[in-house]
C-alpha cells in the first residue's frame, strides 16, 4: 500500500509530469483573468487560501517529509545537514505565500465592497516606535536567536573529507540556492543558464517597478487588482526558481539523472541521450542532405526562429493581442518587458522541446561556443 503510494509519487515527480502539472495548474491557482478566476472559484481551488487549505497544505508537506524520513532512499538526501534549509524553505514559502494570499483575498473582498484594506488606519492615529515597535523587534530577535542556537546545537555543520581535486563526487552540486541555475544547465548551455539568465533575473527583477505601471495594490495585500503581474512573478518565483531548486536538491542523483524521491540513486542508471539539433532536423532529416559547410547557412533556421521569437513575436503581439497594453505602457517599457518575459518563457519552451522532440540546440555553433 505504502509502496504503491511511493511508486506513484516517484512517477508523478518526474519533471515532465510534475512540471507540466504545475504549469497547467498555475493559472488556476493564481488566476490572471476572469475566465481562470471563474474556474478557480468553481473547482474550489480558492479554498487553498483559506484556513482549511492551510492545514491541508501543511499536512501534505509534513506527510511527504515524514514518509520520506522513514524511507531508506529519501532518508539519505533528506537528512543531509545542508539540505535542511530546503525543508525550511518549503515550509516558510508555503506559510508566507498562504498568509499573503489569505490576507489578499480578505482585502479583495473588502475592496469589492468599497471598503479600505484592513491595513488602513487613521493616519493621525499613530503608534510610538518606542516602545511599540522596539519591543516587537526585540522579541523577534530573541526568538530567532533561540531558534538559531537550538539548530546549531542539534545539527553539526557539515564537513566531508578533505578536498581532493582528483576525486569528483557524483553528483557534484552547487550550493542549494543556486540549484535552480544548475537545473537549467540540463536545457541550456552554461553561457545562458549560468551567465545570461542570472543577469536577466537580476536586471529583470530590478526593472519590475519600472515595467509594472499598475498603481494599485501598493502597501497592502491584494491579488485581484494586480493579478497579471502577480501571476507572472509567482510563476517565475515558485515554478522556475523554487521548484527547480527542490528538483535539483532532492531529485537529481548521479550523472544528474532524475530520481524520484523514494528511488534508489543508482549510479549505473542508463538514460539514452540522443538529442538532436534543430539544424540536423532540418538538413538531414527533413531535406535528406548533408550539413552545409557554411556555419551561418547551417544554423540559419535557428537564427530565424530566434529572431522570430525575440524580435518578430513582440511586434506581432503589440499589433494584435497586446495592442491596448502596448499603447498604455509605451514602446520602451514594452520592449524590456518582452525581452525579460520571453527569456523567462524560453526556459519552459526549451524544456518541452527537449522532452517532446529531443531537441538539443536551436542554434548549434560549438565552434564558437554559441549554442542556444
Amino acid at each position, binding site marked *: 500500500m505504502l509502496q504503491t503510494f511511493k511508486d506513484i509519487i516517484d512517477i508523478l515527480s518526474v519533471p515532465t509530469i510534475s512540471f507540466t502539472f504545475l504549469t497547467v495548474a498555475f493559472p488556476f491557482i493564481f488566476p490572471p483573468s476572469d475566465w481562470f478566476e471563474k474556474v478557480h472559484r468553481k473547482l474550489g481551488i480558492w479554498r487553498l487560501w483559506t484556513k482549511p487549505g492551510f492545514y491541508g497544505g501543511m499536512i501534505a508537506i509534513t506527510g511527504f517529509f515524514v514518509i520520506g524520513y522513514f524511507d531508506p532512499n529519501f532518508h539519505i538526501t533528506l537528512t543531509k545537514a545542508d539540505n535542511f534549509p530546503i525543508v525550511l524553505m518549503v515550509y516558510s514559502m508555503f506559510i508566507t505565500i498562504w498568509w499573503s494570499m489569505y490576507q489578499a483575498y480578505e482585502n479583495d473582498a473588502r475592496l469589492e465592497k468599497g471598503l479600505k484594506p484592513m491595513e488602513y488606519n487613521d493616519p493621525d492615529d*499613530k503608534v510610538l*516606535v518606542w516602545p511599540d515597535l522596539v519591543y516587537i523587534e526585540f522579541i523577534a530577535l530573541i526568538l530567532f536567536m533561540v531558534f538559531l542556537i537550538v539548530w546549531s546545537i542539534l545539527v553539526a555543520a557539515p564537513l566531508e573529507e*578533505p578536498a581532493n581535486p582528483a576525486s569528483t563526487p557524483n553528483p557534484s552540486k552547487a550550493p542549494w540556492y543556486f540549484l535552480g541555475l*544548475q537545473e537549467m544547465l540540463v536545457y541550456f548551455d552554461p553561457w545562458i543558464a549560468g551567465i545570461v539568465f542570472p543577469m536577466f533575473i537580476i536586471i529583470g527583477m*530590478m526593472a519590475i517597478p519600472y515595467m*509594472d505601471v499598475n498603481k494599485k495594490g501598493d502597501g497592502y495585500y491584494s491579488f485581484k487588482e494586480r493579478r497579471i503581474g502577480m501571476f507572472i512573478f509567482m510563476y517565475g518565483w515558485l515554478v522556475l526558481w523554487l521548484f527547480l531548486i527542490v528538483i535539483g536538491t532532492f531529485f537529481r542523483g548521479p550523472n544528474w539523472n532524475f530520481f524520484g524521491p523514494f528511488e534508489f540513486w543508482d549510479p549505473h542508471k542508463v538514460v539514452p541521450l540522443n538529442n538532436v539539433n534543430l539544424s540536423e532536423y532540418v538538413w538531414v532529416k527533413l531535406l535528406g542532405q548533408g550539413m552545409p559547410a557554411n556555419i551561418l547557412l547551417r544554423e540559419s533556421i535557428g537564427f530565424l526562429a530566434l529572431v522570430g521569437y525575440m524580435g518578430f513575436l513582440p511586434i506581432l503581439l503589440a499589433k494584435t493581442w497586446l495592442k491596448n497594453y502596448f499603447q498604455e505602457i509605451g514602446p520602451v517599457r514594452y520592449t524590456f518587458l518582452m525581452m525579460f518575459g520571453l527569456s523567462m518563457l524560453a526556459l519552459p519552451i526549451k524544456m518541452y522541446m527537449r522532452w517532446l522532440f529531443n531537441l538539443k540546440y536551436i542554434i548549434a555553433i560549438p565552434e564558437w561556443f554559441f549554442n542556444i
Partner: protein
Amino acid sequence: MEKNKNKKSFLERMGESQVWKSIIRSGVPRSRRQRMQAVLGSVFLHLHPARLPKHAVKVGYTWCMGGLSFFLFVVLTITGILLMFYYRPTVEYAYTDIIDMAEQVPLGIMRELHRWGAHAMVLTVWLHMLRVFMTGSYKPPREFNWGVGVLLMTLTMFLSFTGYLLPWDQLAIWAITVGTNMARAHPFIGHEGPGASLLAIGDINLVHAGSDVRFALLGGRFVGEASLLRFYVLHCIGVPFIVMILMAVHFWRIRKDGGISGPL
C-alpha cells in the same frame, strides 16, 4: 507619609543623573514626548521614525524579515570575526583548523551559528523580497530601493557562496568548481564563452584559460590555494564592504521614500 509621596523612585533619580542624561538626553522615556525623543536621539533607533502607522508594527504585515536579515548580518559578522581567530585560509591548514574548531574550542558552536545563520539569511532575504512583492511595496516611490534590495539579495547569495569554499572539504571545492565553471562560459570574457575567440590579435587569443574571468575569480585554472585566499578576502572584507554601503542606502531610502508602505 507626605515625605514618602514626594520621594522619587530609583528610575526617576537615575533618569536625572548626569551619566544617564549624557547618554539619553530626554531622561527615562516615560512620557510620549520623551519616548519620541529617545528614538530621535539614538543613532540606531533613528533608523525608524518616532511614530508609525498602526499596520507597520504588525508582524502579519511585515513578517519581520527585513529586520531579521539585518540581525543575521550582525550575527554573522560577530561569529565570523570569532572564526577568523582560529581559521587560516591556506590549503595546508584550512581543513584542519575547521576540525580543530569543532574539537578543541570549548562550547564551540560558532561555526554552526555561522553556517546555519548564513543559510537562514538567504531564506530571510528571500522572504523579505517576497513580502515586499506581495504588498506591492516596490511601486513608486520605492522603485529605486527595490533595485538596491535586489542587489543586496544577490550579494547575500554571493557572500554565502564565497563562504562555502572556506572549510576546504569535498563539499566545498566541488560546489565552487560547479559554480565557477559557469564563468568560463561568460560571453567574450570567458574562454569557453561565445565571442571569446573574436578577442584575438592575429593568432594570439587574448581570452584563454589563463586570462579569462574565471581565472580572475579563482586566481588560477582550477580551485586551489589562490582561490581559497581570494574567496576568503571576498567573503570577509570585499563583499561585506559593498553590502554595508548598500545597506546604508537601503535603510536611509526607506525613510526618504516615505517610510514603510501602506494603504492611502
